[in-house]
C-alpha cells in the first residue's frame, strides 16, 4: 500500500467520526505539518542536553562556596522560577533580540529557534539545579566520611562518591523536568517558530479543523513524553542500587 493510499484510508475512516483530516491529502499542508513535527523534535533534542549542562553549571555555582556567585545565581533562579516562560521568551526575543539586531546592524546570528532553545533550556536548567542540589545534600555525611577515611582526596570523594549518589537521588526529578521541557517547546509557536503547534495553527486557520489537528498534536506529545519517561526508567534501572533504602 502506498503512502497516498494509506492516507486516503485514514481520511475515510475518520470522516464518519466527524473528523476532517483532508489536509493530509494536500502535499503542501502535509509537508508543512511534517516539518512542524521535525522542528518540535529538533527543539527537544537541542534543549534537553543544553538544559542538563546548564543545570549542572548552575548547581555547581550554587554550591561552590563563592558567595557573590551563589547569590547572583540564586537571584536568577528565583526570577526564572517565579515568572512565566512565555514572558521570559518575549523578553528574550522581543527585547534582547531587538537590541542585539540594532547593535549588529542586521546580521543577528541568533535565530528565533535558538532563542526558544536558550529560554526553555535555561528555565528548566534552574529546576535541574534545584534537583541536583537536593541530591547532593541528600548524600549522607557518613558515606562521605567513609570515603575520606579511605584516603580519598576531596576531589575523589566528590567525583566517586558524592556525585554518583547525588545523580541517582536526583534522577526522578530530572526526568520529570525533561518531560515538562518537552511540553514547554509548544510555546515556540508564540514567536512564529515553525513547530508542530505553529504549523497546525496555520493549517486550521485555513481549514477550521482545530479538533483534528489538536488530537494529532496531543498524540505526538504523548509519544515524545513517553520516550523521555522510558529513557528515564531505563537509566534508573541501570543505575539502580539494589536493596537501597531498606
Amino acid at each position, binding site marked *: 500500500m502506498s503512502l497516498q493510499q494509506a492516507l486516503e484510508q485514514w481520511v475515510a475512516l475518520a470522516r464518519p467520526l466527524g473528523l476532517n483530516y483532508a489536509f493530509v491529502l494536500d502535499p503542501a499542508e502535509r509537508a508543512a505539518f511534517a516539518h512542524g513535527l521535525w522542528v518540535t523534535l529538533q527543539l527537544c533534542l537541542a534543549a534537553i542536553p543544553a538544559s542538563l549542562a546548564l543545570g549542572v553549571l548552575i548547581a555547581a555555582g550554587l554550591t561552590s562556596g563563592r558567595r557573590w556567585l551563589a547569590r547572583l545565581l540564586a*537571584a536568577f533562579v*528565583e*526570577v526564572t*522560577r*517565579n*515568572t*512565566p*516562560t*512565555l*514572558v*521570559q521568551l*518575549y*523578553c528574550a526575543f*522581543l*527585547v534582547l533580540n*531587538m*537590541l542585539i539586531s*540594532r547593535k549588529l546592524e542586521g546580521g543577528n546570528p541568533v535565530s528565533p529557534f535558538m532563542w526558544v532553545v536558550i529560554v526553555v533550556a535555561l528555565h528548566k536548567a534552574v529546576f535541574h539545579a534545584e534537583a541536583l542540589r537536593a541530591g547532593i545534600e541528600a548524600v549522607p555525611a557518613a558515606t562521605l566520611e567513609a570515603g575520606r577515611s579511605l584516603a580519598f582526596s576531596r576531589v575523589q570523594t566528590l567525583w566517586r562518591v558524592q556525585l554518583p549518589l547525588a545523580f541517582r537521588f536526583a534522577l526522578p526529578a530530572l526526568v520529570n523536568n525533561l*518531560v515538562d521541557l518537552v*511540553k*514547554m*517547546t*509548544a*510555546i515556540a*509557536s*508564540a514567536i512564529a517558530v515553525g513547530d508542530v*503547534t505553529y504549523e497546525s495553527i496555520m493549517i*486550521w486557520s485555513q481549514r477550521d479543523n*482545530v*479538533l483534528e489537528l*489538536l488530537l494529532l*498534536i*496531543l498524540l505526538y*506529545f*504523548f509519544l515524545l*513524553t*513517553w520516550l523521555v519517561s522510558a529513557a528515564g526508567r531505563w537509566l534508573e534501572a541501570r543505575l539502580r542500587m539494589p536493596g537501597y533504602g531498606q
Partner: protein
Amino acid sequence: MASDIVLAARPAARRGLGRLARALISDPWALAALGLAALALYWSATGSAPEAARQLWHWWPGLLRGLGMNVRISLLAMALGTGLGLLVGALSLSPAGPMRALARLYVQAFRNAPILVLVYFTTYVFPFEIAIGGWSAPFEDWTKVVIGLALPASANVAEIFRGAVQSIPGAQWEAGLSLGYTRAQIYRAVVLPQCLRRMLAPWMNLYASITMSTSLASLVGVHDLVDTATVASNTVARTDFTVLIYFTLLAMFFAYCYPIARLTRHLERRYARH
C-alpha cells in the same frame, strides 16, 4: 484602666510589626521593591520622569486590570481543578481496579499534554456561546481558559492527593483497624487530617505554576496582562518603552508569585517537622 490597656497593647504590636519590618529590611527583594518605590516617588515629586516611565504610568491601570484577569483565571482554575482533582484522586485510590485505571488514564493524559494545547483545545473546540433551551449566553474566552487550565490542575491535584495518602505509613492504618475503625472512619479521623498538611506545599506550588500558565491566555485573545503589555508596546512604539514594559511584565508576575513561593517554603519547613 485605660492607660494600662494602652501600655500593654503597644509593646505587643511593636513586637509583631517590628519583626515584620526587620524581616523586610533584610530581604534583598523587598529592598529592591522599596528602592523602586522611592525612585517612582522621586520622579513624580520632581516631575523629572523619563518619557518611557511616564508612558508606563499612563498604562499602569490597564496593566493592573490585566493582572487582575490573570489572577481571576488562576483562582477559578485552581478552585475547579482542586475539586475535580480530589474526585479523581479518590478514584485512583478506590479498591475497584477499573476505577483506578480510569483515574490513572486521566492523570497521565492531562499531565503529558502541553498546557498550551489544552488551552487551544478548550478555546477553539468549545462553542461561542452556551445555548440551553431558549436562553443563550456568550461563552467568554477567559472562561474557556479557566477550564483549559483546570484540567491539568486537576490531574496534578489528583497526584498530590494520592501521594499524600500513600505517604501515610501503613502502621497507622493497622493501628486504626485494630482499634475497630472502618476504612471510612480511618480516612476521616486519621488519614485526611494528615494529608491536608502534606498536600499544602505541593498544592501551593501548583497554584504558582497555574498562575504563570495564565499568561498563555494572551495567545488566544484574552485581554490579560501580557496582551495589555503587547498592545501598549505596539501603541507607544518606542524602543525604551518596549524594553521597560516587558521587564515590568516580568516584575509584576514576580511580585505576585515570589511571595507565594516564599510562603510555601515557610510552610514546608514548618510541616516538615511532622
